[in-house]
């Protein structure tokens, strides 16, 4: 199921039949496009408008009126700078770890298990298994595994001769651990798709031409699987920058690990400070669009969908 979401099916058949033309295509497209326009684009515009609103003349909490007030942007960029730094820092680290863990795994499943289709599919199911159990509960499972008084932590302290006060929960390490775990299938699946389609004869040819295994990997395998690396890193990095569950105090973080999402949630749902929540969201979205554009230009893959 989730597997098919990332195009793991066989390579598309190239057909010589010309594409259909005519107006009927709009009957198929318009309902979905109108829906996205209304419930995706309009909210983003509304977000931008809200982000420049100014407190109501009455001064009541949660009441704002239209204005062109950029002070919310000034407030979030200055006061939430640590959260902004953490969001992108944690997302970067978690994406790198997810890539390093996923690539060999996806290689084994996508290349080495090719001769055994059923085992390959069943292993892939295990890879995406975390998707099928509640996101919040699997995070709570890690929280309890790493709890200060847990068996695991006692074992780790003894193993590395650490001080009894050593703890992991609530540290940036624990947050990154959770982020890697929760988003790793988003990395493994696109990598698997690329590796599964890799033509092994090219690797053999490189070997026949006396390329060392290392240069076969860096000059043939890796470049050919770049589309998977790119979509995997984007599908991991982007949602992580906006995640706030892992960094929350009730999950793996502490007040010292709060991310952008924690601030948006607090401003929107607790403080009714809609302009600040909107400005923070707009900044996040802006930075992401900038990163994605540069990244996609650099790596040269424009057809992501």
């Amino acid at each position, binding site marked *: 199921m989730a597997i098919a979401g990332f195009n793991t099916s066989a390579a598309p058949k190239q057909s010589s039949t010309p594409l259909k033309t005519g107006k009927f295509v709009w009957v198929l497209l318009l309902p*979905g496009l109108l829906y996205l326009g209304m419930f995706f684009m309009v909210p*983003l515009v509304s977000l931008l408008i809200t982000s420049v609103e100014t407190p109501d003349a009455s001064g009541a909490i949660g009441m704002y009126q239209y204005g062109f007030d950029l002070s919310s942007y000034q407030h979030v960029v200055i006061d939430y700078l640590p959260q902004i730094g953490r969001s992108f820092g944690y997302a970067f680290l978690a994406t790198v770890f997810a890539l390093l863990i996923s690539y060999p795994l996806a290689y084994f499943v996508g290349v080495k298990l090719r001769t055994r289709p059923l085992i390959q599919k069943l292993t892939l199911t295990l890879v995406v298994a975390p998707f099928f159990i509640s996101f919040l509960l699997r995070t709570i499972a*890690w929280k309890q595994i790493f709890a200060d008084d847990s068996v695991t932590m006692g074992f780790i302290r003894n193993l590395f001769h650490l001080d009894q006060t050593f703890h992991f929960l609530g540290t940036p390490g624990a947050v990154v651990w959770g982020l890697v775990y929760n988003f790793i299938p988003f990395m493994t699946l696109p990598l698997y798709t690329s590796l599964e389609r890799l033509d092994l004869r090219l690797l053999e040819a490189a070997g026949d031409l006396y390329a060392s295994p290392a240069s076969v990997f860096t000059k043939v395998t890796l470049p050919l699987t770049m589309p998977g690396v790119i979509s995997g890193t984007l599908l991991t990095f982007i949602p992580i920058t906006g995640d706030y569950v892992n960094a929350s105090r009730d999950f793996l973080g502490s007040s010292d690990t709060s991310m952008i999402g924690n601030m948006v949630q607090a401003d929107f749902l607790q403080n009714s400070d809609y302009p600040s929540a909107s400005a923070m969201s707009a900044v996040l979205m802006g930075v*992401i669009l900038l990163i994605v554009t540069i990244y996609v230009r650099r790596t040269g893959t424009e057809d992501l969908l």
Partner: protein
Amino acid sequence: MRNLRLGRFVLPVYTVIALVYLLVPIAYTIAFSFNDSKGRTNTLWQGFTLDKWLNVCVRGDICDAVGSSLLISGVSTLVATVLGTAMAIALVRYSFKARSLVSLSLFLPMATPEVVMGAGLAGLFFNLGTGYGYLTVILAHIMFCLSFVVVTVKARVQTLDPVLEEAGADLYASPREVFWRITFPLLLPGIVSGALLSFALSFDDFIITYFNSGGAVTTFPMYIYIAASKGVPAEANVIASAVFLLAILIVVGTQIGSNLRQKRIMAIK
């Protein structure tokens, strides 16, 4: 020789370790659904019991939350699947202007952090003064499920040979008949995958739901989030484990089924 050893030994062992890492929290969650815990907290192992599985609805609030989740995911999936399937067919089979614009508008929701979509939509509902409830949550879920349905179904449309439809038309089937008797049955596996993915995404969504429920609706993930500060009862583990086992059963069953079918086709050939 070194390369051979790497392939034969290191990679399989590595894969097993990676899979263990992926499965640890799942095993933990399932194990603690059998924990004989008292009250809400379910952090220490108190002994094995089937009680929580047999009396999962003792805490009515959990089953209410699951009911809300099922309703929201069901309706959202239905709408997202219909809209998404139509778009997927259009994208693969038709030539039209503004293709890149359509692709971009489908890609953007997948490239937007949930917190931005959640706050944006909730802000819109606030500005419009509509209030919050099932409807606002469902409208939000359809929005973020739609792109995933399109991607999934599109992959299936691409593997479909147009020759089959042409053959139908040559045999005097009307376009309507061609669609319902040839295209649709062949697309069905892709549509079902898209719908299941959409359902899974919707059922497990927390962030967007939290912003757009306004406290009027409590879904299963929201129940867990709210309970997290006081302790999540074992009954929540029961629900999550049951959903997990059901999903795995469906996926593995489908895989074994298609494997057997393939073997039979091979045997005939």
